[in-house]
C-alpha cells in the first residue's frame, strides 16, 4: 500500500489554479523527488500533502486514509516536515531545537535524549549541540532543523508507515553536506520510510531518487525513473534551457550538464 497517495488533486486559490490533475503515489521505502522551475507549484503541492492547504478537488491519503481519520498527534508521529525557511529567532541551544522534534511523543526524557543525540550525529552536527541556534550559520541551522525532523520520526509509528518531507533541504549546504543529508534520507528509506524531496539540483535528484515528478505550471509534465524523466527534450520544454545528458561512468545514472 502507498504511504502517500494523491488522486486527481487540484488546488485553486481565489480563482487562480495552482495545481491541476495531480496523481502521485509514494510507496514505503521509496524516495520521490519533485522538480520544476520556480512557480511550478512545488511548494503548493507540499502544503496540500502536509494538510496545510485543503485540496479543492481530489484526495490526499496518508497510509490509506484522509486527514480527517488521523488525529493531529498521530499525523505528527508519521509525518516529519522540513520547511524551506525557519522563523526561529529565540536562542534555544541546538540540542533544545532537536528535542522539539519529540513534542508529539511520550517516550520519556532519557530515550528522547538518546534519539536527539543520534539525530544530531546523523546530520554531522553533534559539535553544535550547546551552541545557540541564533548564532549558527545558515547551513548549520538547516542541519539542526533536519535533525529535529529526523528525531520526530526516528522510530516506527504504531499508526502507519512514516513519511519524511523535505523542502529544498540542500539549498544552503556545501557539497559534502548535501550528499550527507540525502544519504541520511536514503538510510531512513532503507528502514521503510517514504521520502518526498523538493530539489532544484537535477543531478542530486538523479543520483538519489527512485522516482522523479517534474512539475510545470501546476501539472505533472513528466514522471518516472531518473532515466525516463531527465531527457534533453523534456528539460528544454519545462526549463527552457539546452542541456546535454550523459551517463555517469560508475553509477550509470543520468548526469545533466
Amino acid at each position, binding site marked *: 500500500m502507498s504511504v502517500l497517495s494523491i488522486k486527481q488533486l487540484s488546488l485553486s486559490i481565489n480563482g487562480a489554479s495552482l495545481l491541476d490533475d495531480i496523481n502521485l503515489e509514494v510507496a514505503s521505502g521509496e524516495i520521490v523527488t519533485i522538480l520544476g522551475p520556480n512557480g511550478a507549484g512545488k511548494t503548493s503541492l507540499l502544503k496540500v500533502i502536509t494538510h*496545510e492547504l485543503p485540496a479543492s478537488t481530489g484526495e490526499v491519503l496518508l497510509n490509506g486514509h484522509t486527514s480527517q481519520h488521523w488525529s493531529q*498527534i498521530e499525523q505528527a508521529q508519521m509525518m516529519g516536515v522540513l520547511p524551506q525557511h*525557519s*522563523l526561529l529567532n529565540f536562542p534555544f541551544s541546538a540540542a533544545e531545537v532537536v528535542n522539539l522534534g519529540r513534542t508529539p511523543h511520550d517516550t520519556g526524557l532519557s530515550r528522547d535524549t538518546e534519539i536527539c543525540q543520534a539525530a544530531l550525529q546523523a546530520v554531522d552536527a553533534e559539535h553544535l549541540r550547546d551552541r545557540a541556534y541564533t548564532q549558527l550559520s545558515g547551513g548549520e541551522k538547516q542541519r539542526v532543523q533536519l535533525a529535529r525532523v529526523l528525531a520526530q520520526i526516528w522510530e516506527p509509528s504504531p499508526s502507519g508507515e512514516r513519511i519524511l518531507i523535505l523542502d529544498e533541504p540542500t539549498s544552503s549546504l556545501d557539497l559534502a553536506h548535501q550528499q550527507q543529508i540525502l544519504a541520511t534520507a536514503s538510510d531512513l528509506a532503507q528502514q521503510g520510510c517514504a521520502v518526498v524531496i523538493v530539489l532544484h539540483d537535477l543531478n542530486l535528484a538523479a543520483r538519489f531518487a527512485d522516482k522523479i515528478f517534474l512539475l510545470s505550471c501546476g501539472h505533472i509534465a513528466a514522471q518516472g525513473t531518473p532515466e525516463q524523466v531527465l531527457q534533453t527534450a523534456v528539460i528544454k520544454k519545462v526549463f527552457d534551457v539546452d542541456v546535454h545528458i550523459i551517463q555517469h561512468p560508475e553509477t550509470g545514472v543520468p548526469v545533466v550538464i
Partner: protein
Amino acid sequence: MNRLAPQKLIISLIALLLAAFVIAIISGPTSIPLSDLAALVSSSAASDNSQHTIIITQLRLPRALLAILVGAGLAVSGAAMQGLFRNPLADPSLVGVSSGAMVGASLMIVAGGSWLSSSSSLSLGTVAIGAFLGGVFAAILVYRLATSPNGTSVSTMLLAGIAITALAGALNHLLEFYTSNDMLRQISLWKMGGLDSANWVRVQVAAVVLIPVTILLCRYSKPLNALLLGESEARHLGISVERVKRQLIFLVALGVGTAVALTGLIAFVGLVIPHIVRLLIGPNHRYLLPASALAGAILLLLADAVARVVIAPTELPVGVVTSILGAPFFISLLRHRREYGME
C-alpha cells in the same frame, strides 16, 4: 552560551520571594521590627490588637499578597504573549487589554463620579469592573479583527492591537478633555498603577482569578516551545495551533484584565520580566513561565515596598517604581545580549 541552570534560578527565586515578602511586611512609614513579626506569627491567634498587628493584618499583608498575585499574573501573561507572537518585545498590552481597561476605568471615573462620592470603596469597585470589561472587550475585538476563516493571523493581531490601542488612547484623551480637574487627577493616578487600594476583598478576587490563570498558563510550555519554530512547524509537531491561540488569548485577557482592574496600569512587569528571565536561562517555556511568575511577584513586592518608603508618608505610584528599578537592569542586560545568544 553563558546561562544559569534553570532549576537553580527557580530555587533562588523562591528564596528571594520569601525574603521580599518579609521585607514588604516590615517596611513602610512605620517600620516593624522582625521580632514583632515573629511574635505575631508564633501567637497565630490574633488576640492582641496592638497597632503593629493591625498594620500587618489589615494593611501590609493584603497588600503584599496582592502584589505577589498581580506581579506573577502580569509576568507570566507577558511570557505567554511573547511566545505566542514569537516576539521578545510583545507584552499583554499588545492585544489591547491594557488600553481597553484604561478606557473602561476612565469612563467609570467620569460617569460614576457624578453620582458616587469619589473616595468610597463602591466607586473603586465600579472602576475595577469598568477596567475589566473594557480590557476583555478590547481583547475580543482585536481577536475578532485578526480572525478569518483560515485561522487567526498573529501579525494582523499585532496591527489590530496597535489600532485599538490608538483608538482607546483617543477615547481616553477625549474623556480627560471633558472632565473636571479632580477626576483628571484620579484618572492619571489610576493610570500610573498602585497597590494602595489593597484589602482582603481584592486579595480574594485576585486569588480566585489569578492563581488559576498563572497555573494554567504555566502548563502551555510544550505548545509555546513548538510555536517558537513557526505556526506550521508547530502544526506538523501535532499542536492544535488555533485552539492553543484561542485559549492563551482568553487566559491572558482574563488575567491582565483582572490585574489592571485591581491595581491600575503597572507598566514594565509583563514586558521586561520574561525578557530578563529568558536572557538568564534561555527560552525554554518549561522554566521560563514559572520563573517569570516568581520574578514578577518579587519585582512588584519590592517596588511597592520602595514606593511606600521613599517619600513616606506619601506614596509613589508603583508603576513609576517598577520602571525606575527595572529599566536600568534591562538596559545592562541588553548591552550584554551577545553573551546570552540573543543575536
